[in-house]
C-alpha cells in the first residue's frame, strides 16, 4: 500500500468506502474505508495509529501534518527552563508510517467540502474521505491584542504556546536577558490549552533565574481571578522555592502590548518587562471555522461525545483542544490522546455499520514540574452520562498530589515516554 501512488490509493480508498456502505447495511462487517486525519499532534497521531491497529490494517489512514516531526508541548517548559533540549521533545513520524502503515502527507489542509467528503491541500490537489478527523489544536485570537496583530510583533513578543521554533526563541530571550531583569508571562482567561502550563513555566523560569540570574524576577499577569489549576500546590511552591523571585497578580488581563517598549497594557495598569511572554486567548484551530463547522461562542467545536463527530457536520470528527470541553475537562495532550481513541473506536463501528459504543470513558493525567526535578499532578476520570449526553467527571475520583515530590518528576518523564510511544511507535 505504501508504494502506491496517491491516485491508486484514493481509488482503493473509495472502493473500500463503497464496500463499507454495502456491508454497513448488513450490520457489522469488518470496517473498511479511508479516514483522513488532519493534524499529527497528541490527538491526530493517536487516532491514526489506533484506526490502523484496531482495524488490523483494513481501514486506510492518511495523516496530513504540516511539520516534519512531532514536537511535544508537554515537557517543553523544561526546554524553556534550560534542563531539556528540543531533541528530548521531538519524535519522528516514521513509526506511524513504517510500523502502522499510516500514509503521512506533509502539507496543510486549506478547505473541507463536507458535502462531497473531500479536502483541498495547500500544495494543490484534493483527497476524498469516508470519515474526516480534525485534530487542529488551537489558533490565537490576535485581534484581541491589537499591538500583536502582525508578524513582526509576534516574532518579538513570543507565546511559545505551540512547541517548536518559539520554544527555542523564548529560551534564547531568557538566556540573553541581563541579571536583574524581569520576565512577565500573561495568561488568558480560561479555557485555554494546558491549564497548569503557564504556572509551570513561571516556576521553571524562576528556577533558572534563581540558579543563574539571582537578581531577576518573574511576574505572572493572570487574567483569571485565581490560579486556574493545582492552586494550593503552585502557591506552596512559589512560597517555598521562589519567594522574592516570583510574583503572582490575579485579575490582570492583558488588553494590548506596546511592542517597542515590551510593555504589557492591562486595564488600569502597565507593566514593562525585559522578556514579555504573552499567551493570547485561543479558539479552535483555524481549519475548524474555515470548514464551516458551527462553533460555540465562536471558538470551540460542538461534538457528540459518543463519537467525537461534529453535531453540525456529519462525517467530520473533531478531537483535542479544539472542542467545546465537557465539565472540568482540561485541554491537554493526554485528553487529546483519549479523544483520539474514543474517535477511532466509534469510526470503526460506523465504518462497519454499527453504532458507536454507548459507554465511552476518558481520563486525564497531567504533571507539572515546579523545579527541574519535582512535579505535581492532577487527574480525573470522565464517564458518559446518557441524561446529559456528556462525559461527566466521576465524583470521588481524581485529584491532585499530596505534595510536590521527585518521584512524580520521574513518573512525569516516564509518562512522556509512554504517551509518545502510544501515539507514534
Amino acid at each position, binding site marked *: 500500500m505504501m508504494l502506491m501512488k496517491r491516485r491508486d490509493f484514493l481509488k482503493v480508498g473509495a472502493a473500500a468506502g463503497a464496500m463499507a456502505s454495502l456491508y454497513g447495511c448488513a450490520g457489522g462487517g469488518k470496517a473498511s474505508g479511508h479516514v483522513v486525519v488532519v493534524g499529527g499532534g497528541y490527538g491526530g497521531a493517536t487516532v491514526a*495509529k489506533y484506526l490502523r491497529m484496531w482495524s488490523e490494517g483494513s481501514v486506510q489512514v492518511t495523516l496530513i501534518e504540516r511539520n516534519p516531526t512531532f514536537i511535544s508541548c508537554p515537557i517543553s517548559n523544561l526546554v524553556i527552563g534550560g534542563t531539556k533540549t528540543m531533541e528530548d521533545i521531538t519524535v519522528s513520524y516514521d513509526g506511524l508510517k513504517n510500523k502502522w502503515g499510516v500514509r503521512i502527507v506533509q502539507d496543510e489542509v486549506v478547505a473541507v467540502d463536507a458535502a462531497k467528503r473531500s479536502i483541498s491541500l495547500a500544495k494543490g490537489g484534493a483527497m476524498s474521505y469516508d470519515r474526516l478527523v480534525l485534530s487542529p489544536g488551537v489558533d490565537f485570537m490576535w485581534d484581541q491584542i491589537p499591538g500583536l496583530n502582525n508578524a513582526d510583533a509576534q516574532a518579538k513578543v513570543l507565546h511559545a504556546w505551540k512547541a517548536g521554533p518559539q520554544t527555542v526563541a523564548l529560551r534564547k530571550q531568557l538566556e540573553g536577558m541581563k541579571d536583574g531583569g524581569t520576565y512577565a508571562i500573561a495568561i488568558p482567561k480560561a479555557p485555554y490549552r494546558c491549564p497548569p502550563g503557564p504556572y509551570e513555566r513561571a516556576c521553571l523560569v524562576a528556577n533558572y533565574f534563581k540558579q543563574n540570574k539571582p537578581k531577576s524576577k518573574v511576574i505572572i499577569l493572570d487574567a483569571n481571578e485565581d490560579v486556574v489549576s493545582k492552586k494550593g500546590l503552585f502557591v506552596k511552591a512559589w512560597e517555598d522555592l521562589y519567594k522574592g523571585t516570583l510574583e503572582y497578580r490575579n485579575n490582570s488581563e492583558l488588553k494590548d502590548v506596546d511592542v517597542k517598549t515590551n510593555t504589557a497594557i492591562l486595564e488600569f495598569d502597565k507593566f514593562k518587562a525585559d522578556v514579555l511572554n504573552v499567551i493570547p486567548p485561543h479558539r479552535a484551530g483555524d481549519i475548524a471555522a474555515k470548514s464551516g463547522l458551527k462553533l460555540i461562542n465562536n471558538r470551540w467545536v460542538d461534538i457528540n461525545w459518543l463519537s467525537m463527530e461534529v453535531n453540525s457536520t456529519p462525517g467530520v470528527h473533531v478531537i483535542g483542544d479544539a472542542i467545546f470541553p465537557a465539565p472540568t475537562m482540561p485541554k491537554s495532550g493526554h485528553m487529546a490522546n483519549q479523544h483520539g481513541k474514543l474517535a477511532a*473506536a466509534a469510526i470503526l463501528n460506523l465504518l462497519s455499520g454499527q453504532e458507536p459504543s454507548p459507554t465511552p470513558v476518558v481520563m486525564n*493525567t497531567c504533571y507539572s514540574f515546579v523545579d527541574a526535578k519535582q512535579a505535581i499532578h492532577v487527574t480525573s476520570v470522565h464517564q458518559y452520562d446518557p441524561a446529559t449526553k456528556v462525559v461527566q467527571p466521576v465524583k470521588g475520583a481524581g485529584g491532585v498530589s499530596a505534595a510536590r515530590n521527585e518521584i512524580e518528576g520521574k513518573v512525569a518523564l516516564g509518562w512522556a515516554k*509512554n504517551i509518545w510511544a502510544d501515539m507514534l511507535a
Partner: protein
Amino acid sequence: MKLLPTVAALGLLAATGAAHAADPNLARNLAATCANCHGTNGHAVPGSGIDALAGVDKAKILQKLADFKSGVKPASIMHQISKGYTDEQLDLIAGYFAAQK
C-alpha cells in the same frame, strides 16, 4: 486470543443486565484509556519506570486495583484514577491486559 476476555466479559455484563452487553470491544476500549501511561495494550516502554500490564495475571491486576481503590496500597495517582471506574470495568480492563502477549 483477543476474544477470550471479551467472552468472559459478556457473561459478566449479561449478569449485570447492562444494555451494552453485546459490545465486543468494550474491554479493548476501556483498557486503551490506561495506555497513555502503561503502554499500548499494556506494553510500557522498558525503563520508563511505569508498570507494564501486558500478560500480567488478571487476579493480580484486580487485587492491585482493589487495593488502590480501598486505599490499602499507597499510590501517587492510581488511588485517584481507580475510583473513576466501576468494578465491572476494572474486571474487563484486567482481563484484557492479562490476555495480551
